């Protein structure tokens, strides 16, 4: 299990949960980062931050600080 922010571009994993019960976590849930779903780390922006991930058919951008709230299990 690793934070979403520690994944590498191109990797995919399954959302496990959130490290903290915050408003940001809630918003990420509402945007579709729901436990059990598959998340794909697409790329970083030119200066590394923010990052882009794909959940289902939806692409999201978020900063690394926000992604560190999400725990994922890397797919083999």
């Amino acid at each position, binding site marked *: 299990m690793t934070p979403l922010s520690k994944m590498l571009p191109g990797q995919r994993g399954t959302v496990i949960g959130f490290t903290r*019960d915050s*408003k*940001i*976590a*809630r*918003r*990420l*849930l*509402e*945007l*579709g980062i*729901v436990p059990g779903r598959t998340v794909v780390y*697409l*790329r*970083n*922006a*030119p*200066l*590394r*931050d*923010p990052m*882009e991930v*794909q959940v*289902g*058919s*939806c*692409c*999201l*951008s*978020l*900063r690394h*600080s*926000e992604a560190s709230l999400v725990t994922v299990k890397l797919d083999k």
Partner: protein
Amino acid sequence: MTVTSGKSTQRSGVVAICGNPNSGKTTIFNAITGLNQQVGNYPGVTVEKVTGRFESDLNPGQKLTLVDIPGSYSLSAFTPDEYIAAAVLFGEFDGQRPPDAIICVIDATQLERGFYLLLQILQIGCPTVVAVNMIDLAQQGGIRINFKRLSRALGGIPVVPVIGNRRKGIDKLKRETANAIDRSFTGVTRIFDSTTEEVMQTLVEQCSDHRRSRAQYLRVIFDENGQAEKQYVRDEGRRVIPWIEQGRRRIRDKFGSLVTAETGALTYRAEELHRLVVRKSESAQTTVSEKIDKYLLHPLLGPVVLVLLMVLVFQSIFSWAAPLMDAIDGAFSWLAGGVEATMVDGPLRSLLTDGVIGGVGSVLIFIPQIAILFIFIAILEDSGFMPRAAFLVDRMFRWCGLSGKSFIPMLSSFACAVPGIMATRTIEDRKLRLITIMVAPLMTCSARLPVYAIMIAAFIPYKTYLGIFNLQGLVLTMLYLLGIATAVVVSYILKKTFLKTERGTFMMEMPTYKLPTLRSIGIRVLNRLKSFLLRAGTIILAITVIIWALSYYPRSADVTHEFNIRKAEAISNFARSQALLASRIDALTTGQSPEVGSAAEHITESFDRALDFTQLEGIRTELIAEYSSFPELVETLYRARYLMLDHNQSITRIANEKAGAHIRGSFLGIVGRQIEPLFEPLGWDWKITVSVLAAFPAREVIIATLGTIYNLGTEIEVQSSSLIEKMRNAVWEDGPDKGKAVFSPAVAISIMVFFALCCQCGATLVTIRQETASWIYSVATFVYMTALAYLFAFTSFQIMRGAGF
């Protein structure tokens, strides 16, 4: 099928249209209401409010008002936008009637997220119509939706499949909405577990009235320290606090956390609905958008494309707009000329030509630039590129206290700060938005260009360094950089002091790319132009008339009289001299051979072609050689033409001197000379001071004012060499430098630096007021920019003068 159920049809009704951002909510709004829209602000907050009217074929004559509320992901508000959305839906918003029905727009390709919001909205208990949008894209992606089953699963509320940008399903949506108001039928609500239901019940029992909906009680329970909880405690007293706490404890004991309890239930039901109504043929999901993003969001290629795109936008704003702007300018000059020719000289004519046509015309001239800019913005927004641009620059903008979302407003402000400030509506964070609004006017807008152009042409020498760098071009570039650098510093300071932003967020959806439709771009551009024209016709017109009045009155009759006498003298002198010359010509031609007569005729014709003294001298030399046998005839006819040209010139000079004397004696002139000492440290005499002051409503005004003041009348074109000449020849009227030239490169730089930083734009200040719903930010922007302008102009003038320029 109930068409009208027992109760009579309401004559009017309010319908709120809501949905996730990028669900095509605004496209459907536009499709339903067309050009029948009003753009305004929700009072007290920085969010735009758009309403439109429509009627359905079900109840013709029933006027329904459609309110476009900001896109939101959840009723648990995260951004100011979402606070508004929730407040309007709950009927808590002052000045906005609670909706009689809700249209909830769901993106067919993002059904689960749409269902999540829909399930929350159903808790409101208001008649709701579901519009499943972009079903064509869903079908292409292999998603098949059973709409009948969806309607049944939601408790029988209407579900309408729609393709917003092709207007498919819009009529049915209107019909179902009118029908839903009549039937006032609501869908499923029981989606939470028994514990949550019990907690909600205890809170309802504590309540003295029953005006809150289930959706609001859910907000009281689940949003700790949120608006709903505070309002509930305010209404019912502090005694309810233990009930809330106890309820939350029960829920936490069962689910671990409040967030898990609510989002868990909603997500579970949303996924269940999705499984129930969607049949998906599994396909590998590398979408077209993802393929495009491989290039557009590439770490190296992405920024390059972005820069090229910006260059394209700039180029088109300046080059494509130029002919149209010239045409508008021409039209206004023609109009002013027409008025001047048909009306008698007097205050009314001056008000119409110098005030209304000159002032409003100088604003309307920007219509082409604004239209082009908005066409680009509409295309970039509708296609889904904007979030990508914000994504690319976010990190860079964060260094100076802005965010990636500030990028588009700043870019627009290089054309004009007005659309730039309007474009900040996409920034959710209120403080970030305010910072962006306050620094946007520092970008070099197109109204500063004519001022720079004339000052640089007049006083910055044309020198080239290292073969490629031209001093004039360098100065212009420095002025652009000065604006940008100041914006960076100011936003950094604002972020650290008055508008301390918490660590902002950048959680944003990257929507799929879509082909913008002509119709939706047309509607948006036309609506923007409509509100721009409205402003030009009201506020800008008023400011212009005030400035005109201050520089026209009190028109001293003595001055008018004095110049009328001078003009009459000049005319009678001219008539006398002309009569003398005429008799002389008579003497030379009468009784002579026909050869002399035809020579005289030809010589007169030739001289008449001379429009100034240089031409006249040239023609004279030619004719002396050609008609060497009639030297006296040539000389006399030459003097006749000379007299004519000289007379025209002195009549113009008298008129210009009269205008100058009047402006010296006007309120503006009196005030200008009073406050001259204040601007002397910047190197300005009273004429520059007055011109700059007159340019506070709109920067371009300075050229017209300088023209008037330097005895030239007001029709001065930018590159008019005669204004440049007059400025070069201007000398101090009194003081220690009396007789010395007013203008120098140092003074020109001081004026340009002042213009680069000063907020001399009534339209911008009014727009800031409109966008922030408060004069405070207009005043703050005006004060800090004017103070910086003075400081920087002072510093640059003193340094330049010290260095001997």
